[in-house]
C-alpha cells in the first residue's frame, strides 16, 4: 500500500497507490504556501472562490449537477495548516470505476473537472469573477467569526495565538478578520497565479487502475515558472510561562495548556516525543484521562495532542470553573511524573501498540492514507507507515523520559463564564 512517485512538472509530484481494496477512487491535490500575515487571508479565500465555478462549468450549480451525474462524485476544496505552512487542498472522490456503468468515462470527466477547478477558473477582466470574489470574501469573514461557535476550538486557538504572537504559527489557517476585510481582487488573483506557477504541489491518488492518471494530470493547464523555496519552521527556546484568563458566556470552562518541546518531525528522537505525548494524554489509558477524569471526576474530555512539525503539545480539558486550580495542579503533576521517569511498562507498551494500530488502520481509509503524508511533504521527508511503526516500536522508556524532560509549559489559558470563580 505504498505510493509510487511520478514527476508531473517542476515542483509537481504525483503519488499513486494502486489498489482494488476500496469501493472508491480518491484524488487530493495539495498546494503549499508559507503561512504569512500578508498572504494567509488570500490563500484561504482562493479555494473558496475556485469552487464557485470554472471556465466551462461557470456556476457552483452546474458543477454540483455534474458531480451528481457522475454517480454522486465529490469535488471540493479547503485549507489546512501544517506547521508554518498553509496548504490549499482540492479533492475529487468517486465510486470505483469498475462498480458503475461507464466508470472510465466518469473518471476522465471527473478528473478533467478537478483540473479545471484548480487551473482553469472563471476569469473576467483579468481577475476572478467580481461577484464570486465579494460573496466569498463575506463568507470567509463569517467563517472566521464563527470560530466562537465551537468553544473548545476557540479556546485552543486563543491559547495558540497568545503563545505564538511573534511567530507565523500564531496565524489562523483562514486568516484574520482585519486581513480578510482588506483583501482586494487583484491581489488575490495574483496570489493565485503565483501559487499555481511556483508553489510546491503534491498530488495523491488511491484507487484501482490509476495508469491513466499521470497523462490526465499532465494535461491540466499548468503554467509553471521557478519553484519557490519555502522557509523552514521557526522554533523558540527561551520560554516563560504565562497565564491568560478570558471571560465569555459559557456553561463549561475550557482549560488549554500549550507546551513547547525540544523535538520536531526531523529530530532523530521525534518518535520518543510522540510516545511521550501518547503516555500523557492521547488514550483512555493515558495519565491525563485516568487522573483528571477517572480519579478526580473533573472532566468529560481531557487530552493532549502533538503538532509534530513545530513540536508543540496542547492539552485541553472541559471543566467546571471552580476546578481550575485543581486541574492545573494535576496536569503539572502528571507532566512532572513523566519527567521523573514514572512511566510503567504497561503505559509504554499500550501507548506503542495504540500508536502502531492507529497507523495500520490508516491504510484502510483512502483519505487517511493520503492525509498522513501531509507532515512528510511539509518537512520534505515522506515516511512509509512501516518506517514510522518501526521507529515507534524501537522507542525505550529512557527516551520517553528524556523527551518528556523537554516539555515546557508556555501558555496556560482559561476560558470561563462571567460568574466563574477562580
Amino acid at each position, binding site marked *: 500500500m505504498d505510493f509510487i512517485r511520478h514527476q508531473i512538472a517542476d515542483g509537481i509530484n504525483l503519488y499513486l497507490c494502486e489498489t482494488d481494496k476500496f*469501493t472508491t477512487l480518491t484524488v487530493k491535490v495539495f498546494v503549499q504556501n508559507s503561512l504569512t500575515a500578508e498572504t494567509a487571508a488570500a490563500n484561504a479565500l482562493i479555494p473558496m472562490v475556485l469552487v464557485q465555478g470554472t471556465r466551462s462549468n461557470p456556476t457552483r450549480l452546474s458543477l454540483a449537477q455534474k458531480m451528481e451525474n457522475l454517480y454522486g462524485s465529490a469535488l471540493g476544496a479547503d485549507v489546512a495548516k501544517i506547521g508554518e505552512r498553509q496548504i490549499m487542498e482540492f479533492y475529487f472522490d468517486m465510486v470505483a470505476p469498475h462498480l458503475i456503468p461507464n466508470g472510465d468515462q466518469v473518471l476522465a470527466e471527473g478528473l478533467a473537472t478537478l483540473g479545471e477547478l484548480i487551473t482553469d477558473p472563471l476569469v473576467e477582466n483579468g481577475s476572478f469573477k467580481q461577484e464570486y470574489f465579494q460573496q466569498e470574501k463575506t463568507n470567509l469573514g463569517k467563517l472566521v467569526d464563527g470560530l466562537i461557535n465551537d468553544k473548545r476550538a476557540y479556546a485552543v486557538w486563543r491559547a495558540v495565538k497568545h503563545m505564538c504572537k511573534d511567530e507565523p504559527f500564531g496565524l489562523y489557517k483562514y486568516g484574520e478578520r482585519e486581513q480578510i476585510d482588506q483583501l482586494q481582487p487583484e491581489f488575490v488573483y495574483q496570489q493565485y497565479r503565483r501559487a499555481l506557477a511556483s508553489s510546491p504541489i503534491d498530488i495523491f491518488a488511491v484507487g484501482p487502475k490509476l495508469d491513466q492518471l499521470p497523462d490526465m494530470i499532465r494535461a491540466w493547464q499548468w503554467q509553471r515558472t521557478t519553484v519557490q523555496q519555502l522557509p523552514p519552521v521557526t522554533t523558540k527556546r527561551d520560554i516563560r510561562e504565562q497565564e491568560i484568563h478570558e471571560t465569555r458566556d459559557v456553561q463549561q470552562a475550557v482549560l488549554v495548556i500549550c507546551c513547547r518541546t525540544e523535538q520536531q518531525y526531523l529530530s532523530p528522537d521525534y518518535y520518543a516525543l510522540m510516545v511521550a505525548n501518547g503516555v500523557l494524554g492521547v488514550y483512555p489509558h493515558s495519565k491525563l484521562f485516568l487522573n483528571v477524569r477517572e480519579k478526580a471526576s473533573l*472532566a468529560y474530555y481531557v487530552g493532549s495532542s502533538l503538532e509534530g512539525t513545530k513540536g508543540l503539545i496542547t492539552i485541553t480539558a472541559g471543566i467546571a470553573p471552580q476546578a481550575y486550580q485543581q486541574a492545573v495542579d494535576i496536569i503539572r503533576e502528571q507532566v512532572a511524573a513523566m519527567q521523573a521517569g514514572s512511566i510503567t511498562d504497561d503505559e509504554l507498551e499500550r501507548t506503542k501498540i495504540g500508536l502502531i494500530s492507529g497507523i495500520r488502520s490508516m491504510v484502510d481509509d483512502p483519505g487517511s492514507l493520503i492525509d498522513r503524508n501531509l507532515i512528510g511533504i511539509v518537512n520534505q521527508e515522506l515516511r512509509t507507515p512501516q518506517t514510522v511503526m518501526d521507529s515507534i516500536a524501537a522507542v525505550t522508556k529512557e527516551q520517553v523520559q528524556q523527551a518528556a524532560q523537554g516539555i515546557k509549559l508556555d501558555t496556560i489559558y482559561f476560558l470561563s463564564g462571567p460568574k466563574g470563580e477562580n
Partner: protein
Amino acid sequence: MQLIRTITNEPLYHEILGNGLPVYILQKPGFQKKYAVFATRYGSLDSEFEVAGRGIVKVPDGIAHFLEHKLFEEEEGHVFQRFAQFGASVNAYTSYNLTAYLFSTIEYFPEALTELLRFVQNPYLTAENVDKERGIIEQELRMYDDNPSRKIYRNLLNALYHKHPIRIDVSGTVESIQDITVDLLLECYHLFYQPANMALVVIGDFDPHQIMDLIKAQMESWNYQAQEIKRIFPDEPDTVCKPWFEQRMNISQPRYYLGLKGTVRHSGRELLKQQFAVNMIWHSLAAKSSPVFERLYNSGLINDSFGASFQAAPRYAFSVIGGETEDPDKLDAAIREAITELKRKQISSDLVERLKRQSLGSYFAAHNSLDYLANSFIVHLFNGTSFLDVPKVIESLTADEVNQFLQEELDLERSAVSVLLPE
C-alpha cells in the same frame, strides 16, 4: 450459518443464536482493521415501561446513556485498560433507539471480542462509582450546553412534539441525572440487556467460523433474565407544540431550522422507501445541485452550513432544513415558498433518476468504512429494515412514488421553527 452476498460481493454470514441473539459476520478481505458492535434496542425513547411485579415505571431522563457509561467500569478497573493492552480502541454511544458498544482493532481480535461480550454482560455498579460518574456526565452535559448545533436541534424537537420522548436529550439534564440510582440502573439493565433484544455485527478479514464459535462460547455463560419488554408510549398529537421558538446564545450569527413532522411508518420496505425518497426530495431542494440553494446562496441568505435531512424510525419521522443565516424571517419565508413551489411543480422523472444515481453512489462509497457498515447494519436491523435491500429500494423508486411522498411528508401545517440568535 446462512451465507448472503453484499452488493460489492463480500460474504456476509448470519445466524440467530439459541438465546435469540442475531449475529452478522461480514468478511472484508484486505482490511487491516476489524470492527465489532454489540447493541441493544434500548435508547432515550424507552423512558416508560412495564415491569412484572412493579407496574409502570417512568425512569429519569438520560438513564440509558448513564448506564452506557457505567458498563465500562469493572470491579478490576476500567474496561478501557483491558482494550488498551490489545491496541484496540473501545467506545459506545446511545441514541433514541439503541445503545451500542463497539471497538476496532488490528490485532488480538478474538481476545478483544471476548472482552466486549464479557463486559456488556457484567454490570458493576456501586453507589460510589455511580456518584463519580455523575460528575463526569455533568461536564459532558455542560459541554453540550455550549454547542449551538445541539441546542437548536433540541429546541426544534421540543417545538415539534408535545409529549413524545424524542423531546428528551439522549443524555438527560444535570437535574435529571441526580435521580439515577444503582437500583434503577440495574432494573433497566436486566430488562433491556437480554440477547433477544440485542444484536452483534462483526466485520473484518478473518475466519467467520472461528469467530462464530467464539461468540457462541461467550454467549453460553451469560446468565441473563428473560423478561417480556412492554414499552409505554404516549399518544402524540399530529399538531406541533410550538410553531416558533427562539433562544439567545453566544454565537457569531443567527441560525434557523425548520422542522416538519412526518408520517410514522413502522417497519420494512415502506420505511426504507420513505427514508430514501424523502431524503432525495430534500436533496433536490437543499443540496448545492439545487437551483433553490444557488438562489439563496447568491442572495447571501445562506452559506455552506445550509442543508436538509429526514430521519425516520418505527417510532418517529421528521425533517429538518436550515442553517446559519443573517435573517431568519426572510429565510423562513423563502423556504416555505420553495416548498410550496416544489409541491406545485413536482419533481421530474429526469431529476429522480439523477437523485437515484447520487444515492446509489453514496451507498457504494460507504462500503469503505467498517464503522459505517457495522452501525448501519444494526440501525436497519432494529428498524425492521435491511441494509442489503437499500440498492433495490432506491432502484425501484418511481417519480410518482417520490412525488406522493413529497405531498405527504413536506407538510407545512405540521412544521415548527427553532431559531438561535446572538446575544
